[in-house]
């Protein structure tokens, strides 16, 4: 979680320096959802995400050097500079991508799960999306198919209260119970504290075996909050929410919560955290240096990978 936080803070700095361009959607405040959920997966399980995907990719174990290089648009990036912030893919780590059409990757997740069931493998697919995706037609079609065919997929709705600047209560009829969307398809659904990484991990550990065992999909509504703006063009709060609201949620910072829990249970000392900060800082600094030192793709790369040849 600390790596994701510091990595993204550094990404914002790099954006200000024009080392990173385009869209950059920060996950700051929501780290516990990805880390808690992904920590319960096996290495060969699939994970797939929407466009706010740095956290999921790093949580899956991707090398920060190659993630940062992708944000820089460099040849050494995960996708050789062809994907960018919103389209990170790390196939060897079964991170099947970030997708930038809201709701459009949810059918892909059901397809990954369909494939593992077809292949008689005991794998699960975990699919992350925001609450803003739940009213899309594609989400509903995917939920219906997943429930109908009892596919081994865990839908994780990251309810950060806002779809860009529109609060859930102005966008979603079932805003007070987004998990109810899935329940209406007969999918087991529950709400979880997405600011508490241990709660996320616990609920995942509880449900993953039943999903793996073929009892059908599960839908988790992780209650979370985005501390930063929607993207870099949006200030930390904006016209659509107040500074006070953001500050209130910052008191539930998932990193602070975990640190307090660890200190009070003697699972770490202040010195440990100082040491951890130093180590993470070195990793992030190295990632920036790696990205900065890496070459841009050559013009010859423009036309490769359009069609798979062979």
């Amino acid at each position, binding site marked *: 979680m600390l790596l994701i936080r510091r990595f993204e803070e550094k990404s914002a700095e790099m954006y200000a320096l024009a080392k990173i361009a385009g869209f950059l959607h920060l996950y700051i405040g929501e780290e516990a959802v990805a880390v808690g959920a992904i920590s319960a997966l096996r290495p060969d399980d*699939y994970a797939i995400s929407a466009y706010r995907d740095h956290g999921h990719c790093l949580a899956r174990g991707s090398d920060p050097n190659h993630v940062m290089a992708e944000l820089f648009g460099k040849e050494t*990036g*995960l*996708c*050789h*500079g*062809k*994907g960018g912030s919103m*389209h990170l*893919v*790390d*196939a060897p780590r079964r991170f*099947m*991508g970030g*997708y930038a*059409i809201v709701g*459009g*990757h*949810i*059918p*892909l*997740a*059901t*397809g*990954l*799960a*369909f*494939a*593992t069931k*077809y*292949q008689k493998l005991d794998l699960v697919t975990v699919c992350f999306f925001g609450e803003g995706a739940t009213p899309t*037609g*594609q989400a509903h*079609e*995917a939920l*219906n*198919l997943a429930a*109908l065919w009892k596919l081994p997929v865990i839908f994780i709705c990251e309810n950060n209260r806002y779809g860009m600047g529109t609060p859930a209560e102005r966008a979603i009829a079932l805003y007070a119970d987004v998990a109810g969307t899935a329940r209406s398809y007969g999918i087991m659904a529950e709400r979880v504290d997405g600011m508490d990484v241990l709660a996320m991990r616990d609920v995942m550990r509880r449900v993953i075996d039943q999903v793996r065992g073929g009892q059908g999909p599960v839908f988790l509504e992780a209650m979370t909050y985005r501390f930063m703006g929607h993207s870099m063009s949006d200030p930390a709060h904006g016209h659509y929410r107040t500074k006070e609201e953001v500050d209130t949620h910052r008191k539930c910072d998932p990193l602070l919560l975990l640190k307090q829990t660890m200190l009070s249970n003697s699972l770490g000392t202040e010195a440990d955290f100082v040491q951890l900060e130093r180590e993470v800082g070195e990793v992030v600094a190295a990632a920036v240096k790696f990205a900065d030192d890496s070459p841009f793709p050559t013009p010859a790369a423009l036309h*490769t*990978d*359009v*069609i*798979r040849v*062979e």
Partner: protein
Amino acid sequence: MVLSYREALNQAMSEEMRRDSRVFLIGEEVGYYQGAFKVSKGFVEEFGPQRVVDTPITEAGFTGLAIGAAMAGLHPIVELMTMNFGILALDQIVNNAAKIHYMSGGQLSVPLVIRGPGSAAHQLGAQHSQSLEAWFCHVPGLKVVAPATPHDAKGLLKSAIRDHNPVIFIEAQLLYGTKGDVEDGDYTIPIGLAEVKRNGSDATIVAYSKMLLLALEAADQLSREGIEVEVVDPRTLKPLDMQTIVASVKKTGRLVIVEEGWHFCGLGAQIAESVYAAAFDYLDASILRITGEDVPMPYSRPLEDAAIPNVPRIIDAVKSVYGRQ
């Protein structure tokens, strides 16, 4: 062996499904109904419902599901009851199937066939009579195939199923019952290879799918008037075999392109541009395009007939480029 177009498709799919367990068929009514146009007759009995998957009416959902399954190593065949319904799945086709290989820097691929009938049949109305191949051809990352004969349909469908990329395979309702000689057993026809269906020296017609049959009929009639037309069937629309088309135009000096799709921004415009770039000095006349009219397809029979290319229009066009009018 003489087979119908429908039987040729059935053979191609069943042979590939026997050969490769990763191949499965998914779509509306493909199983117990035997396919809306009976293309998958006998499939669910032979392969079972796990590999012949009936879906609810959710094109975006099941097309997206098939793309995800392809990303995980399967080779799905998606049957769209008609290509018109591909519009509902266009986000999945354009934003996911076509782009995932590129966006991932080559890490992921989508070996997938999306097949079904395009173009008009008989009076099906505006929403069920569209030729959308130009839309698909516009998108980098897709291959587009539109065979006209049973032999080509079988060989190209087998190639499409074995391809590592998303292939849009466009059939036609009015072709399903047509018959032709089909090679026995396993054979493939490479994607991207045109075929000269009729030799001639006076003018070239490029036509594909159902329009090929009209072009051949027009060529027969013109032959009786002493005009020998060469008919080129691209068979694959993307990648387009310009080499074969250009070679024919260099020989005849005249070109008519026939397509059922709408005129504006149609595929023929692209073919004409490519021919002008490659063989301008060989042309003895401007290239003519015979296309569908730029209107939603009307229901009424005489209006529908007026909206679709026909043999007399093709004959007139050839005579016009040949200077006989």
